[in-house]
């Protein structure tokens, strides 16, 4: 995921962060699940919707058409073409039925049985059966690309009847949550997979109309007539993705009515959008937060803690002007394990005291720290600017290097620990809506570093992390307590990380669109099926 983020974020060059907070949408009520049936009489005399919904992403949409390995920007399209067994509802914080209508777990979370929806048609013409679903998941696991690891717990899959899918796991895992992932959890007809994007094997409401790689309007989708959810006249039948790298251009296109939806704006444009009549805005908190990882091998504990205190959290969030909210711990709000009330605060006096204890500070030797962050990311740059200004007063020089993700990551993984950075700045968000991702990837100790870039090695923490999936699957309350304890250990006791803010998605869309709701579990995805123009 970091990789994708490297792309998306670096790509955002001049784009401000994706935005966040709240979850209110101006002038739109929400429709989270498709109407199960379409009763012609029930719908008002809506006229057939002939308009095209134009989405303006800042990067090319599709790099991988295979639902097994897709792990990048194409989620914007894939989540409308393909469906999983479940879909995460950000409001209830629970997975909800999608291709599975109900599910149960047994044996302390090591056995899961999903009941499949009846009468679901693939775009290939095939009908959904447990056999095809099993094939799809097994194919995904075998391909091993992208986020296939999420199925790591699966031992075997059985199909007791055409509409029942039974998983046996090696260890307890929250499979209903895993199955809602936007990556690698799609149920598809393997016969429909086509790397050239001419056809697809999904069950979703939309299917590929035309894919023209490299063209401005890269991809168009059309309604799948036989969608199990049915169609109402007013729903959008045509979707276009129009690649627009410059945020300023995207805004002008939105204003002129040429595009319908812009996923990212900067705070100033967002502010302007809020007062522009032809445009509506949406703010939603995300699951993406900024991690400032301190090198636990080179920096003494006191220095790490001093750095935590040196960050101007309030100033940063103020400068973000709504594009982010102060984080409370590692786990963003809306996920299990979130602990409210542990927002950090800047305290330079305390930072100085800690530094002096470590032998540094204003009248002591100068401390020079190497920091790496994502090139072209304005928000990370803001953090760096504020942090270096604060540290300067404490006789600490921050040598901050903006880097391409590959290079930044390579340096962090250098064999020679002396070549690694002291501070590593990156975003993190989970592949499926579960906080386990932060802990197992970023803070569990590993022989050779990959994402554990604070290089923390703590057997006790490892042990607690390893117990998390089973706890989540069986005893959410205990899991919550364990997450709280882990965050205390990692942030307060070991000072391996500072978490300044959680991003807030700030979307702008044409005023005439009804029903838009942001779902942070599927970043940047618009579920077009839920939308309609206002009457």
């Amino acid at each position, binding site marked *: 995921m970091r990789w994708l983020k490297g792309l998306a974020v670096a790509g955002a060059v001049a784009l401000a962060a994706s935005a966040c907070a709240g979850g209110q949408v101006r002038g739109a009520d929400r429709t989270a699940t498709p109407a199960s049936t379409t009763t012609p009489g029930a719908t008002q005399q809506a006229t057939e919707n002939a308009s095209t919904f134009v989405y303006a992403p800042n990067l090319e949409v599709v*790099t991988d058409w295979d639902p097994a390995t897709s792990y990048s920007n194409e989620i914007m399209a894939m989540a409308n073409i393909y469906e999983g067994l479940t879909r995460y509802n950000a409001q209830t914080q629970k997975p909800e039925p999608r291709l599975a209508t109900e599910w149960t777990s047994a044996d302390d979370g090591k056995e899961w049985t999903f009941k499949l929806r009846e009468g679901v048609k693939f775009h290939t013409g095939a009908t959904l059966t447990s056999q095809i679903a099993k094939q799809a998941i097994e194919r995904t696991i075998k391909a091993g690309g992208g986020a296939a690891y999420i199925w790591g717990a699966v031992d075997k899959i059985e199909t007791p009847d055409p509409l029942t899918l039974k998983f046996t796991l090696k260890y307890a895992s929250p499979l209903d949550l895993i199955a809602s992932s936007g990556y690698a959890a799609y149920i598809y007809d393997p016969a429909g997979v086509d790397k050239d994007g001419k056809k697809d094997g999904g069950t979703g409401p939309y299917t590929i109309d035309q894919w023209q790689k*490299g063209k401005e309007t890269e991809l168009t989708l059309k309604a799948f007539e036989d969608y199990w959810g049915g169609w109402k006249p007013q729903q959008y039948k045509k979707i276009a993705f129009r690649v627009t*790298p410059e945020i*300023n251009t995207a805004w002008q*296109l939105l204003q002129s009515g*040429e595009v319908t939806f812009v996923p990212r704006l900067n705070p100033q444009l967002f502010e302007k959008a809020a007062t522009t009549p032809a445009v509506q805005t949406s703010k939603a908190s995300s699951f993406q937060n900024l991690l400032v990882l301190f090198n636990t091998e080179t920096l003494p504990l006191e220095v790490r803690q001093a750095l935590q205190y040196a960050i101007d959290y309030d100033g940063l969030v103020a400068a973000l002007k709504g594009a982010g909210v102060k984080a409370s711990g590692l786990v963003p709000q809306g996920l299990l394990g979130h602990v409210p009330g542990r927002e950090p605060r800047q305290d330079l006096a305390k930072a100085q005291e800690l530094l002096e204890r470590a032998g540094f500070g204003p009248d002591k030797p100068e401390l020079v720290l190497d920091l790496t962050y994502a090139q072209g990311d304005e928000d990370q740059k803001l953090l760096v600017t504020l942090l270096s200004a604060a540290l300067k007063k404490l006789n600490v020089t921050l040598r901050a290097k903006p880097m391409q993700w*590959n290079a930044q990551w390579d340096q962090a993984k250098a064999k020679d620990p002396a070549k690694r950075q002291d501070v590593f700045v990156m975003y993190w968000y989970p592949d499926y809506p579960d906080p386990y991702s932060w802990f197992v990837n970023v803070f569990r100790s590993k022989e050779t570093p990959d*994402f554990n870039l604070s290089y923390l090695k703590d057997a006790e923490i490892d042990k607690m992390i390893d117990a998390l999936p089973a706890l989540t699957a069986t005893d959410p309350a205990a899991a919550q307590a364990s997450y709280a304890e882990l965050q205390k250990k990692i942030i307060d006791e070991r000072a391996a990380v500072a978490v300044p803010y959680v991003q807030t998605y700030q979307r702008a869309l044409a005023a005439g669109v009804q029903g838009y709701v942001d779902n942070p579990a599927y970043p940047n995805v618009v579920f077009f099926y839920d939308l309609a123009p206002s009457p």
Partner: protein
Amino acid sequence: MTRYLTRRLGQALLVVAGVVALTFVIMRLVPGDPAVAYAGPRASEEQLAEARRRFGLDEPVYVQLWTYLRDLLSGDWGTSLHTRRPVLDDLYLAFPASLELVGAALAVAVVAGVPAGVLAARYKTKFPDFSVRVTSMLAVSVPVFWLALALQTVLASGLGWFPVAGEYDSRLDVTSPLTLWTNITVVDALITGNWPILTSTLHHLVLPALVVAAYPAGVIAQLTRATLIEEASQDHARLERALGFGETAILTRFALRPALGPVLSLIALVFAYSLVNAFLVEAVFNWPGLGRYAAESIRSLDTPAIAGVTLLVAVVYVLANLVVDLLQAVVDPRVRAR
């Protein structure tokens, strides 16, 4: 002539070989393991090894260079790390759009630059001359990315005279889909008689073409002016004056023709340069060309793609130079003897 041709072609090949070697070196030097970039962050060791084999990274350097050369010649320019498609395919899609933009820009540049130069030469040291000199100097000094931003905001967004961005109105893809032949939209629309797309594309072309045209127009105006003034001061002009031709007639009827030679070869030379300038403009205008592709490649540190773009532009550059030299050799036999 044949001897000159072979020698000149040989030189061009030599230069291209040098360019290939240089791109190869640059690719080797780029930080970050391309295998990691390709295989993705959570790739297993086996997947990484597989990716390394795929890119030939486990071979000694000279073998890699040889493989690289062989692949280039056989049309395999590597696989882009970010689009995951063959680089040559990507270039084949992106290059025509840039070609369209640069072609339009050069047309604008000639149409604006030559008359401006004539005007300046006709009224030399007078006000028209002064304003042409200042304007052309401004045109070659302006940062194109900034000009793009300004024109877009004022003429498109503000006054609404032109579309903000894009190659044509994307809604036309539905109402009058375009059959692709050359991938150059204007040409394809002409061939297939797709008038809605043609007019839409031309309308969308105006602003970006104007921006890219700034530099070549300035240079062409300056060159036309200088050549014309030189021509007009020569003996034959004196004769024509004696024969009673007016200054304007002398400039346009007699001096302009010989002046067109240098202007033509200049166009070939500024072509490659304008291509690079288009790079800076395409993102602003959402133009689906080489520049946008290159910008994305740079952002994602996509070495095969960067190398591909570099190589393509360098080859275009060498070709343009070759064409200029051959044209000059045809016109002026002394060049051949050099």
